[in-house]
Each structure stands twice: as structure tokens, then as C-alpha cells.
């Protein structure tokens, strides 16, 4: 019962809707009527539009000869034409009372000004104003709709209504973007000095597209003499600075080298890129140092552009920096760019190495290096027949191989290993050496293996490999070293100089060694970066007082620093103080002169004064050798052997001889120490105020 109730009970929302069949005809007639109304409406509106179009066309046809008459009318025309001209003027004045007619005339003139040029165009602009059509454009500027305002601005600019310049300039900082853009173009189109006004007044952003349009608008002028756009490089609006840079580049104004170079340090990447483009275009080689300095703080895109600029402007002096980039940079694109930059400066420094087909020689090399690998980890003990056994006499079966025990005496190991390598793997060793020297020269690999090896072991390896080379191989080997002199090969070169039979090779080795010692540029050490940086900077920047002085804002603290420099300063401070003499105000000059004279006296008595170049070559290299010593022996083993060497210590290591320094400083300090404080007016005022309060 229950089930039948559920089954046959009707559910209202799933039943078929009841259609009122009586209303079907009514609905049909309704839809037919709607269809008819729709088609009639389309027909009427289309006809209306057509009629409007035909009417406008006929008006155009009617007005065309009238406008032509106005445009080509001349006072020298015959009397009949003069009469016709006057009649037409009266006729058109009557027509112009109609708003619709004015619109048609405006449209005709706008269309026509695009197709005509020369004197006719100028007469057309004049006619536009004579007919008073520019008042319609003015009226559009007061509209609340942005599109109407923009149209008005466009009309005034196209019809060259110069009187509207002030009105348009009000819209330069309009909050509506499109109105602002139209006003910017209008202001530039109207007057040659419009760009000055725009750059001076605009506070809003100028999009890149808009900037290009503005430059295009400036290009339209005949006989345009652009202003010095460098004046706007100091604008507070970044987009104005960017536009100014683009205009400088566009109009080839290359007299603002310093400002443009300074802008490479800008926080905005776009400005940086624009400045770099200018530097490249104008070949500002003086900006090279700045380009290198900002490199590490820049984004990847800027880095690539910077490298591009360095490739264009740089020379071999830029190579250490580029090698540093190759070793330090993580980004693939920047790394590749740095490599191509190296090749751009010195062609074919880096050769292709990836996906190359292996030749027989390569395979041999590979197999030999593979075979050599165990030798570095294991020691082969060779049982040979005699001391100077030839290669073929060695019995390979007699070789016993076992793991290296680290605690074993290294010398013994080395000798045995050398004896083992000597006959078997001469090509591998040679290739490895060549690879190492090549990699080191490029700064590509931090030769981990080489670093781990004992120097004496490496030397022996190299010597033994060299001994087994033929004359041609030796010549090639020395030539390779001559291409990329490396301080780490000096021991081998010394060996060649002493033991080589061939005089020519001996001389070549001597030559390479001489160059190596002159250059003293280790490739991988971290010190290299510091030294290179130091070589780039002028001497005054080496002073520890330089940076402190830069941060001083008042004269008193500057005086204190100058005095401190007098007590402990040396050659670097002397250069620093001499630099200050040129730049600082007269109030500081007595203190500076006094400090200079004290330091000069001290230098004459103790350290000899070197000129800048001498300082860079000798003092820095000296500093470097000490740093290397520190690295090799450890700080505790650094023993200063005599007094002269102590004197030559760079400032960073002065702490090693504190006692002496203290003595020297004390001597100077005994002579004249005084502190002079000047209390500010504000301080006195505050004291007076507090006194008054207490009294009250």
C-alpha cells in the first residue's frame, strides 16, 4: 500500500508543464510582430544612415570647390574671381551658424590637411582659424568626457593653433592617462620648445611607447635645433631622465659624458640600460671603470649590456675583470656573454670545446689521462733493473699497486710516483699540463688537484714530463707558456733555464720567466681581485681615511680625521691629503698642509716616496707576495726578517708589528696633541633655556 502510494503519487516539479494551447496563436502573432518591428527598425536606421552619408557626401562635394577657392585665392586674381570669393565667404558664414555644417567643414579640413603639403597646408591652417573652427576645439577641452578632451587637443595640435599652447600645457599633468598623452604630443607638435616645457613640468610616468611617439613627433620638425637634453638628467622624475637619455642618444648629444656615466649607477634598470646604450654609442671609454664597478650590483639583463659595452670599449686591461666574471658568475647567459666579451677583446682566447667529434689524438689523450688517474691516488712501485732503465725495459707485471697512506712521507711517494709516471704516461702529463695552463690562463678551473698537490711534487712531475719531450714538443710547450705566462710555472722555467741543452729554448724560458715575474698575476687566488681592483683605483683611494672622510658631514670631524692622518699616515695618506687640498674649502687647508708636511718629513726619514706607477708595480706586488706567504706558511710562520722588510709592509699587515707602530705614533703624538671643541649656537640656546626654567 505504502509502495503504491509512493509510486503513483504525482511530484509537481517533474511533471510535464501544462501549456495553455489557446494562447499559442497569440504568442505566434506576438513573435511575428516583434520580427517585423526589428526588420523595420533595421531598414529605417540603415536608410537614415545612408541618407546621412549621401547628404554628407553631397555637402563635401558642395564644399570642396569653395574650400579650394579659399585656399588658392589670391588678391591678384581677376575681378570676377574676387567677386566670387566674397560671395562664397558670405555664403559659408551663413552655413557656419549650423553646428552640423561646422562639423562637416572641420572634418573636410582635417582630412585635407593629411593629404596636402607646403604652402597649401599653411593656408589651410589659416582658413581653419579664420572660420573660427578652433573655438569648437576649445569647447571640447571643457568636456567632462576624456575622449572629447583628447579629440579637442588633437584638433588644436593638428591645425597648429599656437595660441592654445598654454591651455594644452594645463593637461600635461592631467590624472587621465589618455588626455595626458594627447597633451604631451600636442605640446611637442605645436612649438619647437614644447619638449622643454614637457620635460620641465611633467610629474607623471611617460610610457616607452609614448616616449617613442614623442621622439617621432620631434623628428617631424624641419630645421629643428634640439635643446641640451643633458639638463634633464638630474630630473626627479625617472621617466624624464629616461626620455632625456633617449633624446641624447637620438640627437647625438655626446657632451654629457660624466652625467651619463653617473647614471649607470642608477637604481632603475631602464635608466641604467639607456645610459649604457649612450656610452656604447658615444664610445665613452672613460666610463669603463664605472661599468666594472656597478657590474656586481646589477641584474642579469644589465650585466649582459655592461659586458657588451666592455666588449666595445675595453682592452686587454679588462681581461682580469672578465676572467673574474667567468669564474664567479652563476647565470649562464652572463657567463656566456663574458666569454664572448673576452673573445671580442682578444680573439680566439676561448676556443669551442663542447660537442666536438673526438679525433684519434683526443682519444689517445683521454685514455692516457684515464690511465693516469689511478696514479694520482695510488702509488706504483716499480722494480726496475737499473737506475736509468729505459722505458721498454720495465716489466709491467712487476708493478705492485696499493693505496696511498696519507701519513707516509710525501717526498718518498713523489719520487716513486715520478719514477712510475715517467716512462708510461708522458703524453697524458703533457696534455694535462697544457690543459692546466690553458684553464688557469682563462680562469676557468680552480685547479683543485694542482692545489692539493705538494709544490715539489708538481715540479717533479713537470720536470720529468719535460725531460721526456722531443725538441718540437718542448718548443711548443714553451710557446704555450709564453702565450699565457703563469707564476706557478716559474720553477719549471728555472729548471729549463738551468738544464736545457738547446740555447734557443733556454733563452725562451728565460724570456717567459722574466715576463712572468714582471706580471705576477696569479689567476685563481682571491687576492687577484683585490690587487686588480687596487690597480684600477687612483692612489688616494688606498687610504683608510678616504672612506671615513667621505662620510664626514661637518668641518670639525674632517679636521679630526686630517689630524689623525698626520699621526699615522704614510704614502697613501699623502696622496689622499694632496687630493683634499684641491677639493676642500679654505678653512681646512691649513690643517691639510700641516699634515702633508709632517707625513712628508716622516716619509723622507723612513719610507721613500714612490710615484703612483712605482707604487702600483712594487708596493702592490710586494703586498701580494706577502699574502701568498701567509697563505702558504700560515700566519704564525710569517717571520719578518729585517727592518727594511718591515717598513715595506702594506698597511693591512701593520698589526704584525704593532709595537713599532705605537712607538712611531707616540713620538709624533708627543710633539703636538690638542683637541679643540666648538659648541654650537643651539647648545648655548638650550643651556640658556634650561637656566631660565630653573630660575622660574
Amino acid at each position, binding site marked *: 500500500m505504502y509502495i503504491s502510494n509512493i509510486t503513483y503519487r504525482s511530484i509537481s516539479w517533474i511533471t510535464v508543464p501544462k501549456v495553455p494551447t489557446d494562447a499559442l496563436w497569440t504568442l505566434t502573432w506576438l513573435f511575428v510582430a516583434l520580427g517585423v518591428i526589428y526588420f523595420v527598425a533595421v531598414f529605417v536606421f540603415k536608410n537614415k544612415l545612408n541618407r546621412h552619408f549621401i547628404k554628407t*557626401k553631397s555637402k*563635401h*562635394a558642395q564644399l*570642396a*570647390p569653395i*574650400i*579650394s*577657392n579659399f*585656399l*588658392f585665392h589670391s588678391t591678384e586674381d581677376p575681378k570676377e574671381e574676387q567677386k566670387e570669393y566674397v560671395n562664397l565667404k558670405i555664403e559659408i558664414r551663413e552655413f557656419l551658424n549650423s553646428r552640423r555644417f561646422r562639423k562637416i567643414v572641420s572634418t*573636410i579640413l582635417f*582630412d*585635407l590637411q*593629411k*593629404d*596636402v*603639403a*607646403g*604652402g*597649401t*597646408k599653411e593656408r589651410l591652417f589659416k582658413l581653419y582659424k579664420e572660420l573660427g573652427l578652433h573655438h569648437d576645439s576649445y569647447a571640447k577641452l571643457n568636456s567632462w568626457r576624456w575622449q572629447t578632451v583628447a579629440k579637442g587637443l588633437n584638433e588644436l595640435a593638428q591645425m597648429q593653433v599656437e595660441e592654445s599652447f598654454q591651455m594644452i600645457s594645463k593637461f600635461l599633468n592631467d590624472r587621465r592617462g589618455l588626455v595626458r598623452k594627447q597633451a604631451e604630443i600636442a605640446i611637442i607638435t605645436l612649438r619647437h620648445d614644447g619638449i622643454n616645457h614637457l620635460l620641465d613640468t611633467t610629474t607623471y610616468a611617460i610610457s616607452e611607447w609614448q616616449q617613442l611617439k614623442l621622439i617621432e613627433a620631434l623628428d617631424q620638425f624641419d630645421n629643428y635645433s634640439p635643446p641640451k637634453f643633458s639638463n634633464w638628467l638630474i630630473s626627479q622624475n625617472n621617466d624624464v631622465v629616461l626620455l632625456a637619455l633617449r633624446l641624447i642618444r637620438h640627437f647625438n648629444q655626446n657632451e654629457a659624458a660624466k652625467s651619463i656615466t653617473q647614471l649607470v649607477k642608477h637604481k632603475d634598470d631602464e635608466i641604467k640600460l639607456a645610459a649604457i646604450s649612450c656610452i656604447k654609442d658615444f664610445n665613452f671609454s672613460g666610463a669603463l671603470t664605472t661599468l666594472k664597478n656597478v657590474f656586481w650590483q646589477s641584474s642579469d639583463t644589465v650585466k649582459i649590456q655592461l659586458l657588451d659595452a666592455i666588449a666595445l670599449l675595453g682592452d686587454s686591461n679588462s681581461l682580469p675583470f672578465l676572467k673574474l666574471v667567468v669564474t664567479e658568475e652563476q647565470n649562464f647567459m652572463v657567463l656566456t656573454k663574458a666569454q664572448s666579451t673576452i673573445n671580442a677583446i682578444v680573439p680566439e682566447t676561448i676556443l669551442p670545446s663542447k660537442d666536438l667529434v673526438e679525433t684519434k689524438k683526443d682519444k689517445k689523450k683521454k685514455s692516457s689521462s684515464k690511465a693516469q688517474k689511478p696514479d694520482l691516488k695510488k702509488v706504483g712501485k716499480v722494480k726496475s733493473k737499473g737506475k736509468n732503465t729505459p722505458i721498454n725495459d720495465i716489466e709491467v707485471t712487476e708493478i705492485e699497486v696499493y693505496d696511498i697512506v696519507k701519513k707516509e712521507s710525501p717526498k718518498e711517494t713523489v719520487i716513486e710516483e715520478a719514477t712510475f709516471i715517467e716512462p708510461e704516461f708522458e703524453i697524458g702529463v703533457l696534455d694535462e699540463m697544457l690543459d692546466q695552463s690553458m684553464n688557469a690562463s682563462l680562469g676557468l678551473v680552480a685547479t683543485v688537484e694542482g692545489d692539493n698537490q705538494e709544490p715539489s711534487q708538481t715540479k717533479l712531475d713537470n720536470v720529468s714530463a719535460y725531460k721526456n719531450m722531443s725538441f718540437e714538443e718542448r718548443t711548443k710547450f714553451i710557446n704555450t707558456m709564453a702565450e699565457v705566462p703563469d707564476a706557478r710555472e716559474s720553477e719549471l722555467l728555472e729548471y729549463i733555464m738551468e738544464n736545457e741543452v738547446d740555447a734557443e729554448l733556454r733563452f725562451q724560458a728565460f724570456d717567459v720567466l722574466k715576463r712572468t715575474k714582471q706580471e705576477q698575476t696569479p689567476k685563481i687566488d682571491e687576492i687577484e681581485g683585490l690587487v686588480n681592483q687596487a690597480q684600477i683605483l687612483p692612489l688616494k683611494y688606498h687610504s683608510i681615511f678616504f672612506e671615513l672622510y667621505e662620510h664626514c658631514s661637518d668641518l670639525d670631524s674632517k679636521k679630526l680625521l686630517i689630524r689623525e692622518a698626520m699621526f699615522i699616515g704614510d704614502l697613501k695618506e699623502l696622496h689622499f691629503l694632496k687630493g683634499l687640498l684641491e677639493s676642500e674649502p679654505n678653512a681646512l687647508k691649513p690643517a691639510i698642509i700641516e699634515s702633508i708636511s709632517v707625513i712628508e718629513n716622516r716619509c723622507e726619514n723612513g719610507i721613500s716616496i714612490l710615484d703612483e706607477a712605482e707604487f702600483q708595480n712594487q708596493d702592490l706586488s710586494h703586498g701580494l707576495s706577502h699574502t701568498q706567504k701567509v697563505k702558504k706558511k700560515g700566519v704564525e710562520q710569517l717571520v719578518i726578517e729585517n727592518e727594511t722588510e718591515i717598513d715595506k709592509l702594506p698597511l693591512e699587515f701593520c698589526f704584525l708589528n704593532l709595537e713599532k707602530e705605537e712607538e712611531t705614533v707616540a713620538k709624533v703624538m708627543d710633539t703636538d696633541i690638542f683637541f679643540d671643541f666648538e659648541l654650537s649656537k643651539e647648545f648655548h640656546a638650550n643651556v640658556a633655556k634650561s637656566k631660565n626654567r630653573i630660575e622660574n
Partner: protein
Amino acid sequence: MKTKELLLAEDDLMLATLLRYRLEKSGYQVVLVHDGRAMKEGLEQKMPHAIICDVMMPYFSGIELVDYLRNELSSNIPIILISSASNEENIISAFNMGANDFMAKPVSPTELLARVGKELNRYYCT
């Protein structure tokens, strides 16, 4: 001296009227057509002394007209082409077809007048 008759083919009504007015004011008799088909019919009826023709026109372009005149009608009358597309390729193809002169829009009516005068002089006085 008999007035020279010019055929002006330009689809833009305003520019055509303006140029016709300027040319007529200088003493030329101008026949104005607004498309290529009308121009072709006009040429079949009567050959003008010179033709000023827009390159981009309905039915029949200026370049096709030059080709038609030089190859089919074997006429050497001066043809001056006007075009808003003043790219190098257009100009070169117009001259290769046998056009005598080329002017890019916007056109200066005074300059056009000078060019017409020069072409007519060169063709009829030498």
C-alpha cells in the same frame, strides 16, 4: 596656344577637387575620374596630354594603368603617379613600369603643377 588636357584619377573627392581647382586655375583642362574603371573608359575615348594618377584606386591601380598604357596602348604620354605608400619598392616598380614621375602624399599642389609643366615641356616641346 591650345590648352593642355589632363586626366586626373584620384579616389579622394576633396583632394581631387582641390588639385583640379589648382590645375584649372593654372590653365589646364582637367578631366576628373574617381576610379580605375572610369579612367580606362576615359582613355579609350580620348587620350589626354598627361595623366596624374593615384596608385591606390578601386578596380584599377595606378601601376596597372602605367602597364596598360605603355604595353597595350603603346602610348608614351607623361604619367605622374601619386601615392601615400611612398616606400622604395613602390617607387621603383612605378618607374620600372614606365611612369615619368612619382609624388608621395601629402602632395603640394604647387609642386605638382611644376612637375606637370616640366613633363609636358619635356614631352611636347622636345
